[in-house]
Protein backbone atom coordinates (compact mmCIF):
# COMPACT_ATOMS: atom_id res chain seq x y z
CA UNK A 1 0.00 0.00 0.00
CA UNK A 2 1.48 3.38 -0.89
CA UNK A 3 2.09 5.68 2.01
CA UNK A 4 -0.64 8.23 2.53
CA UNK A 5 0.31 11.72 1.46
CA UNK A 6 -0.71 13.16 4.80
CA UNK A 7 2.32 15.38 5.01
CA UNK A 8 1.92 16.93 1.62
CA UNK A 9 -1.74 17.54 2.23
CA UNK A 10 -1.45 19.13 5.65
CA UNK A 11 1.96 20.00 7.01
CA UNK A 12 1.79 21.78 10.35
CA UNK A 13 4.21 24.63 10.90
CA UNK A 14 5.80 25.88 14.08
CA UNK A 15 7.40 29.29 13.86
CA UNK A 16 10.43 30.26 15.90
CA UNK A 17 11.66 33.83 16.06
CA UNK A 18 15.37 33.36 16.55
CA UNK A 19 17.26 36.60 16.26
CA UNK A 20 15.26 38.53 13.74
CA UNK A 21 14.28 42.15 13.40
CA UNK A 22 10.56 41.21 13.33
CA UNK A 23 10.34 42.07 9.62
CA UNK A 24 10.28 38.44 8.57
CA UNK A 25 8.05 37.46 11.50
CA UNK A 26 5.24 39.79 10.63
CA UNK A 27 5.49 38.70 7.02
CA UNK A 28 5.01 35.14 8.18
CA UNK A 29 2.01 36.17 10.25
CA UNK A 30 0.68 37.99 7.18
CA UNK A 31 0.79 34.63 5.36
CA UNK A 32 -1.81 33.31 7.79
CA UNK A 33 -4.31 36.08 7.14
CA UNK A 34 -7.06 36.08 4.50
CA UNK A 35 -5.07 37.81 1.77
CA UNK A 36 -2.43 35.07 1.54
CA UNK A 37 -4.28 32.37 3.44
CA UNK A 38 -1.75 29.65 4.09
CA UNK A 39 -4.51 27.34 5.29
CA UNK A 40 -5.86 26.78 1.80
CA UNK A 41 -2.88 24.43 1.34
CA UNK A 42 -3.82 22.61 4.52
CA UNK A 43 -0.94 24.28 6.30
CA UNK A 44 -1.68 25.07 9.92
CA UNK A 45 0.33 27.26 12.27
CA UNK A 46 0.73 25.56 15.65
CA UNK A 47 2.41 26.69 18.82
CA UNK A 48 3.60 23.33 20.04
CA UNK A 49 6.69 21.84 18.38
CA UNK A 50 5.45 18.35 19.25
CA UNK A 51 2.55 18.81 16.83
CA UNK A 52 4.63 20.23 14.00
CA UNK A 53 6.21 18.85 10.83
CA UNK A 54 7.83 22.02 9.55
CA UNK A 55 10.04 24.33 11.59
CA UNK A 56 10.07 27.84 10.17
CA UNK A 57 12.87 29.98 11.54
CA UNK A 58 13.40 33.70 11.06
CA UNK A 59 16.60 35.40 12.07
CA UNK A 60 20.10 34.19 12.85
CA UNK A 61 21.31 32.32 15.91
CA UNK A 62 23.12 33.87 18.83
CA UNK A 63 24.73 32.41 21.90
CA UNK A 64 21.56 32.60 23.92
CA UNK A 65 18.94 31.19 21.58
CA UNK A 66 21.00 28.47 19.87
CA UNK A 67 20.07 26.07 22.66
CA UNK A 68 16.40 27.03 22.50
CA UNK A 69 16.29 26.52 18.73
CA UNK A 70 17.95 23.12 19.05
CA UNK A 71 15.50 22.26 21.78
CA UNK A 72 12.49 23.16 19.64
CA UNK A 73 13.94 21.14 16.76
CA UNK A 74 14.62 18.11 18.92
CA UNK A 75 11.09 18.14 20.28
CA UNK A 76 9.57 17.80 16.84
CA UNK A 77 8.70 14.24 15.80
CA UNK A 78 10.56 12.81 12.77
CA UNK A 79 10.30 13.22 9.81
CA UNK A 80 10.72 16.96 9.96
CA UNK A 81 11.97 19.74 7.74
CA UNK A 82 13.39 23.18 8.45
CA UNK A 83 12.70 26.34 6.45
CA UNK A 84 15.05 29.29 6.94
CA UNK A 85 13.29 32.57 6.16
CA UNK A 86 15.18 35.68 5.18
CA UNK A 87 18.85 36.38 4.72
CA UNK A 88 19.38 36.53 8.46
CA UNK A 89 18.44 32.87 8.80
CA UNK A 90 20.64 32.00 5.83
CA UNK A 91 23.85 33.81 6.74
CA UNK A 92 23.23 36.32 9.49
CA UNK A 93 22.40 38.99 6.92
CA UNK A 94 23.02 42.57 7.91
CA UNK A 95 23.85 41.44 11.44
CA UNK A 96 26.48 38.88 10.39
CA UNK A 97 29.29 41.04 11.85
CA UNK A 98 27.69 41.21 15.27
CA UNK A 99 29.78 39.96 18.19
CA UNK A 100 26.81 37.99 19.41
CA UNK A 101 25.70 36.47 16.10
CA UNK A 102 26.87 32.96 15.27
CA UNK A 103 25.63 33.04 11.69
CA UNK A 104 22.87 31.28 9.81
CA UNK A 105 20.67 28.75 11.53
CA UNK A 106 22.41 25.92 9.67
CA UNK A 107 25.05 26.21 12.41
CA UNK A 108 22.57 24.58 14.77
CA UNK A 109 19.92 22.67 12.81
CA UNK A 110 19.98 21.11 9.33
CA UNK A 111 18.13 23.36 6.88
CA UNK A 112 16.14 22.04 3.91
CA UNK A 113 14.80 25.20 2.28
CA UNK A 114 16.25 28.69 2.27
CA UNK A 115 13.84 31.50 1.46
CA UNK A 116 15.65 34.65 0.27
CA UNK A 117 14.70 38.23 0.92
CA UNK A 118 15.03 40.93 3.53
CA UNK A 119 12.27 40.57 4.51
CA UNK A 120 11.18 37.48 2.60
CA UNK A 121 7.88 38.15 0.83
CA UNK A 122 4.82 36.16 1.90
CA UNK A 123 4.59 34.57 -1.56
CA UNK A 124 8.17 33.36 -1.26
CA UNK A 125 7.51 31.97 2.20
CA UNK A 126 4.46 30.05 1.02
CA UNK A 127 6.52 28.65 -1.84
CA UNK A 128 9.23 27.66 0.63
CA UNK A 129 6.79 25.87 2.92
CA UNK A 130 5.22 23.98 0.02
CA UNK A 131 8.64 22.85 -1.17
CA UNK A 132 9.41 21.80 2.37
CA UNK A 133 6.20 19.76 2.38
CA UNK A 134 7.38 17.95 -0.74
CA UNK A 135 10.69 17.15 0.92
CA UNK A 136 8.79 15.94 3.94
CA UNK A 137 6.71 13.67 1.76
CA UNK A 138 9.75 12.16 0.08
CA UNK A 139 11.34 11.60 3.48
CA UNK A 140 8.26 9.88 4.67
CA UNK A 141 8.09 7.52 1.71
CA UNK A 142 11.81 6.81 1.91
CA UNK A 143 11.08 5.58 5.43
CA UNK A 144 13.99 7.19 7.10
CA UNK A 145 11.75 8.23 9.89
CA UNK A 146 13.83 6.77 12.64
CA UNK A 147 17.10 8.48 11.71
CA UNK A 148 17.09 12.03 12.87
CA UNK A 149 19.90 14.16 11.59
CA UNK A 150 22.01 15.35 14.48
CA UNK A 151 24.60 17.99 14.16
CA UNK A 152 26.72 18.94 17.14
CA UNK A 153 26.19 22.39 18.59
CA UNK A 154 29.53 23.81 17.62
CA UNK A 155 30.81 27.29 18.39
CA UNK A 156 28.17 27.72 21.04
CA UNK A 157 29.13 28.36 24.60
CA UNK A 158 26.47 27.10 26.97
CA UNK A 159 24.61 29.89 28.67
CA UNK A 160 24.00 29.44 32.38
CA UNK A 161 20.42 29.77 33.48
CA UNK A 162 19.55 32.95 35.25
CA UNK A 163 19.35 32.50 39.01
CA UNK A 164 16.22 30.84 40.28
CA UNK A 165 13.72 33.14 41.96
CA UNK A 166 13.06 32.33 45.56
Amino acid at each position, binding site marked *: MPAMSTFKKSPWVVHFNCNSCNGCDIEFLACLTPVYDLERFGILHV*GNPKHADVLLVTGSVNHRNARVLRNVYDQMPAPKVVVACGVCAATGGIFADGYNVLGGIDKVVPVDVFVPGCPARPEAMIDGIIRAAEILESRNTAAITSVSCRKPLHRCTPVPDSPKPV
Partner: protein
Amino acid sequence: MIRRNTIPFGPQHPVLPEPIQLRLVMEDEKIVEALPSIGYVHRGLEKIAEKKDYVQDVYLAERICGICSFMHSQNYCQGIESLMNVAVPDRARFLRVVWAEIHRIHSHLLILGLLADAFGFENLFMRLWQIRELVLDIMEKTTGGRVILGVCTIGGVKRDITPETSDYILRQLDEIERQLSAVLPSLTHDYSVKQRLVGIGVLPKDKAYELGAVGPVARASGVAMDLRESGYAAYGELNFAMVTESAGDCYARTLVRVRELATSADLTRQALAKMPSGPITTPVKGSPTGEVLARIEQPRGELNFYIKGNGSRNLERFRVRTPTFANLPPLLHMLTGCQLADVPVIAICIDPCISCTER
Protein backbone atom coordinates in the same frame (compact mmCIF):
# COMPACT_ATOMS: atom_id res chain seq x y z
CA MET B 1 -2.88 25.60 51.19
CA ILE B 2 -1.31 28.07 48.79
CA ARG B 3 1.49 26.61 46.73
CA ARG B 4 4.20 28.69 45.09
CA ASN B 5 5.10 27.76 41.54
CA THR B 6 7.26 29.34 38.90
CA ILE B 7 5.96 29.13 35.37
CA PRO B 8 8.22 30.03 32.46
CA PHE B 9 6.29 32.01 29.85
CA GLY B 10 8.21 32.06 26.56
CA PRO B 11 10.58 32.51 24.76
CA GLN B 12 8.66 30.34 22.31
CA HIS B 13 5.01 30.72 23.18
CA PRO B 14 1.86 30.27 21.07
CA VAL B 15 0.28 33.64 21.82
CA LEU B 16 3.35 35.78 22.32
CA PRO B 17 5.13 36.19 19.00
CA GLU B 18 8.03 37.90 20.70
CA PRO B 19 10.94 35.98 22.18
CA ILE B 20 10.96 37.21 25.74
CA GLN B 21 10.86 34.94 28.73
CA LEU B 22 8.81 35.91 31.74
CA ARG B 23 9.25 33.78 34.82
CA LEU B 24 5.97 34.05 36.61
CA VAL B 25 6.04 33.33 40.31
CA MET B 26 2.54 32.13 41.12
CA GLU B 27 0.48 31.56 44.19
CA ASP B 28 -2.24 29.30 42.85
CA GLU B 29 -3.65 31.32 39.92
CA LYS B 30 -2.36 34.67 41.12
CA ILE B 31 0.94 36.15 40.00
CA VAL B 32 3.03 37.52 42.81
CA GLU B 33 6.09 38.39 40.80
CA ALA B 34 7.16 38.52 37.17
CA LEU B 35 10.84 38.28 36.30
CA PRO B 36 11.83 39.00 32.73
CA SER B 37 14.73 37.12 31.23
CA ILE B 38 16.03 38.63 28.02
CA GLY B 39 18.79 38.27 25.45
CA TYR B 40 17.18 35.88 22.99
CA VAL B 41 17.24 38.39 20.14
CA HIS B 42 20.29 40.43 21.03
CA ARG B 43 22.18 41.06 17.82
CA GLY B 44 24.80 43.55 18.99
CA LEU B 45 23.44 46.18 16.64
CA GLU B 46 25.00 49.17 18.40
CA LYS B 47 28.45 47.69 17.90
CA ILE B 48 27.77 46.82 14.26
CA ALA B 49 26.76 50.45 13.71
CA GLU B 50 30.23 51.55 14.77
CA LYS B 51 31.85 49.27 12.20
CA LYS B 52 29.80 50.48 9.26
CA ASP B 53 29.80 53.76 7.41
CA TYR B 54 27.36 56.30 8.86
CA VAL B 55 25.35 56.28 5.61
CA GLN B 56 25.06 52.48 5.69
CA ASP B 57 23.78 52.78 9.23
CA VAL B 58 20.49 54.18 7.89
CA TYR B 59 19.67 50.69 6.63
CA LEU B 60 20.96 49.11 9.79
CA ALA B 61 18.81 51.46 11.90
CA GLU B 62 15.83 50.51 9.78
CA ARG B 63 16.37 46.90 10.76
CA ILE B 64 16.30 47.57 14.49
CA CYS B 65 12.67 46.63 14.18
CA GLY B 66 10.69 45.50 11.18
CA ILE B 67 7.37 46.85 12.46
CA CYS B 68 8.18 50.53 12.81
CA SER B 69 11.17 50.34 10.48
CA PHE B 70 10.60 53.66 8.75
CA MET B 71 10.57 55.62 11.99
CA HIS B 72 13.89 54.15 13.11
CA SER B 73 15.55 55.32 9.91
CA GLN B 74 13.75 58.66 10.14
CA ASN B 75 15.00 59.22 13.67
CA TYR B 76 18.53 58.24 12.72
CA CYS B 77 18.49 60.59 9.71
CA GLN B 78 17.06 63.45 11.77
CA GLY B 79 19.82 62.93 14.34
CA ILE B 80 22.60 62.95 11.76
CA GLU B 81 21.02 65.92 9.98
CA SER B 82 20.99 67.99 13.15
CA LEU B 83 24.63 67.02 13.81
CA MET B 84 25.68 68.11 10.33
CA ASN B 85 23.34 71.12 10.12
CA VAL B 86 21.61 69.83 7.01
CA ALA B 87 18.40 71.65 6.08
CA VAL B 88 15.98 69.03 4.79
CA PRO B 89 13.79 70.18 1.85
CA ASP B 90 10.21 70.97 2.85
CA ARG B 91 8.72 68.34 0.59
CA ALA B 92 10.87 65.65 2.16
CA ARG B 93 9.64 66.62 5.63
CA PHE B 94 6.03 66.17 4.54
CA LEU B 95 6.80 62.90 2.77
CA ARG B 96 8.35 61.61 5.97
CA VAL B 97 5.15 62.42 7.84
CA VAL B 98 3.09 60.55 5.23
CA TRP B 99 5.14 57.38 5.55
CA ALA B 100 5.45 57.66 9.32
CA GLU B 101 1.70 57.97 9.79
CA ILE B 102 0.96 55.13 7.38
CA HIS B 103 3.41 53.07 9.38
CA ARG B 104 1.58 53.99 12.57
CA ILE B 105 -1.73 52.77 11.10
CA HIS B 106 -0.13 49.48 10.09
CA SER B 107 1.51 49.03 13.47
CA HIS B 108 -1.67 49.79 15.44
CA LEU B 109 -3.73 47.44 13.28
CA LEU B 110 -1.10 44.77 13.76
CA ILE B 111 -1.17 45.00 17.53
CA LEU B 112 -4.97 45.26 17.74
CA GLY B 113 -5.15 42.09 15.65
CA LEU B 114 -2.67 40.29 17.88
CA LEU B 115 -4.65 41.44 20.89
CA ALA B 116 -7.80 39.95 19.41
CA ASP B 117 -5.87 36.73 18.87
CA ALA B 118 -4.63 36.81 22.49
CA PHE B 119 -8.15 36.82 23.90
CA GLY B 120 -9.27 34.22 21.41
CA PHE B 121 -11.27 36.26 18.90
CA GLU B 122 -9.64 34.81 15.81
CA ASN B 123 -12.17 36.21 13.37
CA LEU B 124 -11.40 39.77 14.46
CA PHE B 125 -7.67 39.07 14.15
CA MET B 126 -8.14 37.93 10.56
CA ARG B 127 -10.33 40.89 9.65
CA LEU B 128 -7.95 43.46 11.13
CA TRP B 129 -4.98 41.90 9.38
CA GLN B 130 -6.91 41.79 6.16
CA ILE B 131 -7.47 45.54 6.41
CA ARG B 132 -3.82 45.98 7.31
CA GLU B 133 -2.91 44.53 3.91
CA LEU B 134 -4.51 47.60 2.32
CA VAL B 135 -2.06 49.74 4.29
CA LEU B 136 0.82 47.56 3.14
CA ASP B 137 -0.42 48.02 -0.43
CA ILE B 138 0.07 51.78 -0.03
CA MET B 139 3.61 51.22 1.16
CA GLU B 140 4.37 48.81 -1.64
CA LYS B 141 2.95 51.18 -4.23
CA THR B 142 4.89 54.20 -2.94
CA THR B 143 8.20 52.61 -1.99
CA GLY B 144 8.43 49.08 -3.33
CA GLY B 145 8.81 47.47 0.08
CA ARG B 146 6.09 46.03 2.27
CA VAL B 147 7.51 46.42 5.73
CA ILE B 148 11.09 47.61 5.28
CA LEU B 149 10.82 50.67 3.07
CA GLY B 150 14.37 51.93 2.68
CA VAL B 151 13.23 55.37 1.49
CA CYS B 152 14.69 57.58 4.18
CA THR B 153 18.15 58.92 3.59
CA ILE B 154 20.35 61.54 5.18
CA GLY B 155 19.22 64.85 3.68
CA GLY B 156 15.75 63.83 2.61
CA VAL B 157 13.92 60.89 1.10
CA LYS B 158 14.61 58.79 -1.97
CA ARG B 159 11.22 58.55 -3.61
CA ASP B 160 8.56 61.06 -4.44
CA ILE B 161 4.80 60.68 -4.34
CA THR B 162 3.22 61.71 -7.63
CA PRO B 163 -0.27 63.33 -7.73
CA GLU B 164 -1.72 60.05 -9.07
CA THR B 165 -0.20 58.08 -6.22
CA SER B 166 -1.46 60.70 -3.82
CA ASP B 167 -5.01 60.16 -5.14
CA TYR B 168 -4.49 56.43 -4.79
CA ILE B 169 -3.44 56.85 -1.14
CA LEU B 170 -6.52 58.97 -0.42
CA ARG B 171 -8.83 56.42 -2.02
CA GLN B 172 -7.12 53.62 -0.14
CA LEU B 173 -7.44 55.51 3.15
CA ASP B 174 -11.17 55.97 2.56
CA GLU B 175 -11.50 52.27 1.89
CA ILE B 176 -9.54 51.42 5.04
CA GLU B 177 -11.73 53.69 7.16
CA ARG B 178 -14.89 52.29 5.59
CA GLN B 179 -13.86 48.72 6.38
CA LEU B 180 -12.61 49.63 9.85
CA SER B 181 -15.91 51.28 10.75
CA ALA B 182 -17.54 47.88 10.30
CA VAL B 183 -14.95 45.98 12.35
CA LEU B 184 -13.80 48.24 15.15
CA PRO B 185 -17.13 48.39 17.04
CA SER B 186 -16.74 44.70 17.87
CA LEU B 187 -13.41 45.54 19.48
CA THR B 188 -14.70 48.49 21.46
CA HIS B 189 -18.31 47.55 22.26
CA ASP B 190 -18.48 43.76 22.32
CA TYR B 191 -19.59 42.41 25.71
CA SER B 192 -17.16 39.49 25.86
CA VAL B 193 -14.26 41.59 24.62
CA LYS B 194 -14.94 44.10 27.37
CA GLN B 195 -14.99 41.27 29.90
CA ARG B 196 -11.39 40.50 28.93
CA LEU B 197 -10.17 44.11 28.85
CA VAL B 198 -11.99 46.41 31.27
CA GLY B 199 -10.26 46.68 34.62
CA ILE B 200 -7.43 44.34 33.61
CA GLY B 201 -3.82 45.40 34.13
CA VAL B 202 -4.57 48.79 35.64
CA LEU B 203 -1.73 51.30 35.64
CA PRO B 204 -2.65 54.42 37.65
CA LYS B 205 -1.47 57.82 36.42
CA ASP B 206 1.11 58.39 39.16
CA LYS B 207 2.60 54.91 38.63
CA ALA B 208 2.73 55.47 34.87
CA TYR B 209 4.64 58.66 35.48
CA GLU B 210 6.88 57.17 38.13
CA LEU B 211 7.80 54.06 36.13
CA GLY B 212 8.43 56.09 32.98
CA ALA B 213 5.75 54.69 30.71
CA VAL B 214 5.69 56.12 27.19
CA GLY B 215 3.39 56.19 24.20
CA PRO B 216 -0.13 54.73 24.26
CA VAL B 217 0.55 53.07 27.63
CA ALA B 218 1.22 56.47 29.22
CA ARG B 219 -1.58 58.21 27.33
CA ALA B 220 -4.09 55.55 28.37
CA SER B 221 -3.23 56.33 32.00
CA GLY B 222 -3.82 60.02 31.49
CA VAL B 223 -0.21 61.16 31.06
CA ALA B 224 -0.45 63.61 28.16
CA MET B 225 2.80 62.96 26.35
CA ASP B 226 3.18 62.83 22.60
CA LEU B 227 6.43 63.90 20.96
CA ARG B 228 4.66 64.80 17.75
CA GLU B 229 3.54 67.92 19.59
CA SER B 230 7.16 69.08 19.60
CA GLY B 231 6.76 69.59 15.86
CA TYR B 232 9.63 67.57 14.39
CA ALA B 233 9.52 66.82 10.64
CA ALA B 234 6.38 68.62 9.44
CA TYR B 235 4.17 68.01 12.49
CA GLY B 236 4.50 71.66 13.48
CA GLU B 237 2.51 72.66 10.41
CA LEU B 238 -0.26 70.07 10.85
CA ASN B 239 -3.14 70.05 13.29
CA PHE B 240 -3.89 67.12 15.48
CA ALA B 241 -5.31 66.49 18.90
CA MET B 242 -3.51 64.19 21.28
CA VAL B 243 -5.51 61.12 22.27
CA THR B 244 -5.68 60.39 25.99
CA GLU B 245 -7.76 58.17 28.23
CA SER B 246 -7.85 58.07 32.00
CA ALA B 247 -8.75 54.52 33.09
CA GLY B 248 -5.28 53.03 32.55
CA ASP B 249 -6.51 49.49 31.93
CA CYS B 250 -6.17 47.27 28.86
CA TYR B 251 -9.43 48.64 27.48
CA ALA B 252 -8.16 52.23 27.69
CA ARG B 253 -4.96 51.26 25.90
CA THR B 254 -7.00 49.62 23.16
CA LEU B 255 -9.20 52.71 22.85
CA VAL B 256 -6.17 54.99 22.56
CA ARG B 257 -4.87 52.91 19.65
CA VAL B 258 -8.27 52.77 17.97
CA ARG B 259 -8.66 56.54 18.18
CA GLU B 260 -5.10 57.12 17.00
CA LEU B 261 -5.92 55.25 13.80
CA ALA B 262 -8.24 58.10 12.89
CA THR B 263 -5.69 60.74 13.91
CA SER B 264 -3.04 59.14 11.74
CA ALA B 265 -5.32 58.90 8.72
CA ASP B 266 -6.21 62.54 9.21
CA LEU B 267 -2.54 63.57 9.50
CA THR B 268 -1.73 61.66 6.31
CA ARG B 269 -4.49 63.50 4.45
CA GLN B 270 -3.33 66.86 5.78
CA ALA B 271 0.28 66.16 4.86
CA LEU B 272 -0.69 65.13 1.33
CA ALA B 273 -2.82 68.25 0.93
CA LYS B 274 -0.29 70.73 2.31
CA MET B 275 2.78 69.19 0.67
CA PRO B 276 4.82 71.87 -1.13
CA SER B 277 6.54 71.10 -4.42
CA GLY B 278 10.29 71.12 -4.75
CA PRO B 279 13.30 68.85 -4.37
CA ILE B 280 13.13 65.83 -2.10
CA THR B 281 16.76 65.58 -1.09
CA THR B 282 19.84 67.72 -0.57
CA PRO B 283 23.40 66.54 -1.06
CA VAL B 284 25.31 65.91 2.14
CA LYS B 285 29.08 66.19 2.41
CA GLY B 286 31.48 65.46 5.22
CA SER B 287 31.09 63.40 8.34
CA PRO B 288 29.21 63.99 11.57
CA THR B 289 31.02 65.51 14.54
CA GLY B 290 29.65 65.95 18.04
CA GLU B 291 26.84 64.27 19.87
CA VAL B 292 23.08 64.45 19.68
CA LEU B 293 20.01 62.91 21.28
CA ALA B 294 17.40 62.28 18.59
CA ARG B 295 13.80 61.70 19.69
CA ILE B 296 10.69 60.74 17.81
CA GLU B 297 7.19 59.43 18.56
CA GLN B 298 6.84 55.85 17.42
CA PRO B 299 3.63 53.82 17.44
CA ARG B 300 4.81 52.42 20.76
CA GLY B 301 6.06 55.64 22.29
CA GLU B 302 9.14 57.74 22.49
CA LEU B 303 12.24 56.47 20.72
CA ASN B 304 15.64 57.87 21.68
CA PHE B 305 18.86 57.60 19.74
CA TYR B 306 22.13 58.87 21.12
CA ILE B 307 24.56 59.44 18.26
CA LYS B 308 28.17 60.48 18.69
CA GLY B 309 30.40 61.21 15.73
CA ASN B 310 34.11 62.03 15.71
CA GLY B 311 34.52 63.46 12.23
CA SER B 312 35.25 60.11 10.59
CA ARG B 313 32.96 57.97 8.45
CA ASN B 314 32.28 55.68 11.40
CA LEU B 315 30.23 56.68 14.38
CA GLU B 316 31.92 56.66 17.73
CA ARG B 317 28.83 55.56 19.62
CA PHE B 318 25.27 54.70 18.71
CA ARG B 319 22.84 54.04 21.52
CA VAL B 320 19.21 53.03 21.13
CA ARG B 321 16.50 53.38 23.79
CA THR B 322 13.30 51.95 22.44
CA PRO B 323 9.78 52.53 23.78
CA THR B 324 9.24 48.90 24.77
CA PHE B 325 12.25 49.11 27.05
CA ALA B 326 10.62 52.04 28.84
CA ASN B 327 7.33 50.14 29.02
CA LEU B 328 8.76 46.98 30.60
CA PRO B 329 8.78 48.26 34.22
CA PRO B 330 5.08 49.28 33.90
CA LEU B 331 4.38 45.82 32.44
CA LEU B 332 5.95 44.10 35.45
CA HIS B 333 3.90 46.35 37.72
CA MET B 334 0.69 45.46 35.86
CA LEU B 335 1.41 41.73 35.92
CA THR B 336 1.84 41.58 39.69
CA GLY B 337 -1.45 40.50 41.20
CA CYS B 338 -3.16 39.49 37.97
CA GLN B 339 -4.47 36.07 36.95
CA LEU B 340 -2.37 33.73 34.79
CA ALA B 341 -5.00 33.75 32.03
CA ASP B 342 -4.67 37.53 31.68
CA VAL B 343 -0.90 37.50 31.14
CA PRO B 344 -1.03 37.30 27.30
CA VAL B 345 -3.58 40.11 27.08
CA ILE B 346 -1.65 42.42 29.39
CA ALA B 347 1.66 41.64 27.70
CA ILE B 348 0.26 42.29 24.22
CA CYS B 349 -1.46 45.47 25.40
CA ILE B 350 1.81 47.30 25.97
CA ASP B 351 2.60 46.46 22.34
CA PRO B 352 5.90 44.74 23.11
CA CYS B 353 8.58 44.80 20.48
CA ILE B 354 11.40 42.75 21.90
CA SER B 355 13.46 42.79 18.73
CA CYS B 356 14.01 46.52 19.04
CA THR B 357 14.41 46.42 22.80
CA GLU B 358 17.28 43.96 22.62
CA ARG B 359 18.71 45.35 19.39
